[in-house]
């Protein structure tokens, strides 16, 4: 398993390089333009000047190589300088600059990370923690009232998109409930809010409730369905009968033997989901004005901001490759019969 992991890790480098090239080609080919959102009163020749100053018109390969250099050579050094106070001579080099804000892309990402981790990360955690027990119980008591209710809620939860559920909870908790009520919740997420004491933590908690719940509903629906299906598959297996026949406690049978063998698809789904935390939740972030990484990405896409889109999607790609590797390693731990050599 160890050599497998090392081999796969080495293999990720050419994979990621190839992915970065494909991403770059797509992002560059896509027809949105950095001057597209400017008012029409700005004349074409000025727009051309703007494009020129952004370097949009350079040959594709030159732009790609420059991005590679900035991403893999310059930015890591700047990171080291910031973290340890070393001087690696980066002062004169041009950083990876966003077309829209004309500021370093990495700074933007670092700025957005906290709110995305708070909202999307917590939602993922909450969603998973709710989903697992629901999935297990629904499978164990298939067709019970609990199971039927779980099915109903998760199916509706999944088919109602956040652009609707988000607005619905805003209308209920921010509009219909008067703002002096204890149950009133803010509809606009304050990204400048800092948690320093109990009162500010309480506010942070309140402003997180709605976006987290809306997101968690979707995540719960998905994970609980896969858990349930996989548990059902395993509950009928011969080894379960054997384990029961051996006189093992029912709890041990279900929660140790069956659950462990049912985890493979669940681990896959969760491993696929974790990178998406970083990708942010575009719609939910927009509905609650969280302005995290999802919003950064969508605005960059709409604004034809190639460096930002490229960097964000590439970091996303790194996480995808990494977490799929972790999932593969976990398969081997969950089921030692799986071998990759």
């Amino acid at each position, binding site marked *: 398993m160890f050599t497998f992991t090392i081999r796969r890790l080495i*293999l990720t480098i050419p*994979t990621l390089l*190839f*992915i970065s090239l*494909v*991403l770059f080609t797509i*992002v560059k*080919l*896509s*027809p*949105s333009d950095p001057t597209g959102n400017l008012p029409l009163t700005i004349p074409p020749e000025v727009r051309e000047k703007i494009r020129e100053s952004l370097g949009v018109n350079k040959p594709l390969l030159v732009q790609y190589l420059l991005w590679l250099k900035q991403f893999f050579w310059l930015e890591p050094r700047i990171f080291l300088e910031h973290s340890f106070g070393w001087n690696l001579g980066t002062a004169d080099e041009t950083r990876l600059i966003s077309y829209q804000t004309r500021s370093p892309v990495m700074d933007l990402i670092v700025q957005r990370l906290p709110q995305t981790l708070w909202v999307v990360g917590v939602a993922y955690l909450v969603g998973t923690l709710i989903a697992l027990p629901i999935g297990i119980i629904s499978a164990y008591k298939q*067709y019970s009232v609990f199971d*039927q209710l779980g*099915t*109903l809620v998760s*199916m*509706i939860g*999944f*088919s*109602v*998109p956040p*652009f*609707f559920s988000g*607005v*619905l909870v805003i*209308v209920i908790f921010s*509009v219909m409930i008067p703002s002096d009520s204890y149950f009133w919740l803010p509809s606009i997420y304050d990204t400048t809010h800092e948690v320093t004491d109990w009162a500010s933590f309480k506010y942070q908690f309140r402003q997180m409730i709605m976006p987290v719940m809306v997101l968690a509903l979707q995540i719960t*629906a*998905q994970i609980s*369905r*896969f858990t349930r*299906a*996989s548990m059902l*598959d395993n509950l*009928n297996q011969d080894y379960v009968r054997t384990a029961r026949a051996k006189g093992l406690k029912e709890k041990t049978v279900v929660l140790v033997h069956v659950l462990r*063998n049912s985890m*493979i*698809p669940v681990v*896959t*789904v969760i*491993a*696929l989901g974790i*990178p998406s935390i970083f990708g942010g939740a575009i719609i939910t972030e927009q509905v609650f004005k969280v302005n995290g990484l999802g919003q950064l*990405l*969508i605005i960059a*896409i709409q604004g034809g901001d190639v460096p930002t*889109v490229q960097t964000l*999607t*590439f970091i*996303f*790609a790194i996480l*995808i*490759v990494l977490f*799929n590797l972790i*999932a593969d390693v976990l*398969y081997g731990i969950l*089921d030692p*019969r*799986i071998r*990759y050599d």
Partner: protein
Amino acid sequence: MTDIPQIAAQPRNQWWDVWDQFKTHKGALIGAIFFLVILLGVIFGPWLWGIDATFIDIRSRNQGPSFAHPMGTDQLGRDSFARMMAGGRVSLAVGLTAMALAIGLGTLIGVIAGYFKRLDGLLMRTTDLFLALPLLPLLLVIIMLFRDKLNAAFGPEGGIFILMVSAIGATSWMQTARIVRGDVLAIKEREFVLAARSIGTPNRRMITRHILPNVLSPIMVSATLGIANAIITESALSFLGLGFPPDFPTWGRLLFDSVDYLQQYPERVMWPGLAISLTVLSVNYMGDGLRDALDPKIRGR
């Protein structure tokens, strides 16, 4: 196992057994009937209902449900009932086709990657690549490259339909592929597979007879979630101008457009929301029933 006399009497096609089992699953039966009703409604409804989905009667705008307009009218006075039926056609067609495409592709790649060790690396890295592709720029590129060609070949509506379905299908098979592969990796090492292999079962039979039936449940779940996903994605694409023409109703679009009117005309958002949820629910129950019916251990229990 009390059915022995029946089997002895006549070698029955196994699909009849599946159907018999499916019939006994109450949820599945209700789901199937419901799905059929929706399907028939959206196929034949627009012919029977006299009002065209795009007809604007501006004087009767923003009306609640009435005899003339059972689901009310929208902000331009278009009949919501007609729009729901017309929208259902597109949404169901897109949802089912895109889902089928995604599931088919995902299962194929997942099974091959899980079963044939040699192809695993390449296929899974391809999956990683697709997972990493940003949907929106990708679609913009696809549309820029192919829209005019497809329009020329299949007409504007056919062209967009093919474009949407393949775009949604091509960008949503990866999860199924990963899940199926994970399961196949584990199943492949089970005793019954080893046993089958020891008697020289060829790969193809191995996959269809032994592997596939055992990964059916996650596929069913993926399929159910896939329909909902395709319907919603379609609405997002249409909204961005990447999909059907703006006056072309679909459930996702109707839902999206009516969200702003949530407080004033809550029924307007209810109809498409209900339609999508009920479709997904009925497919879910059908999937449950089918899964049980196909499982030889449950069947005949």
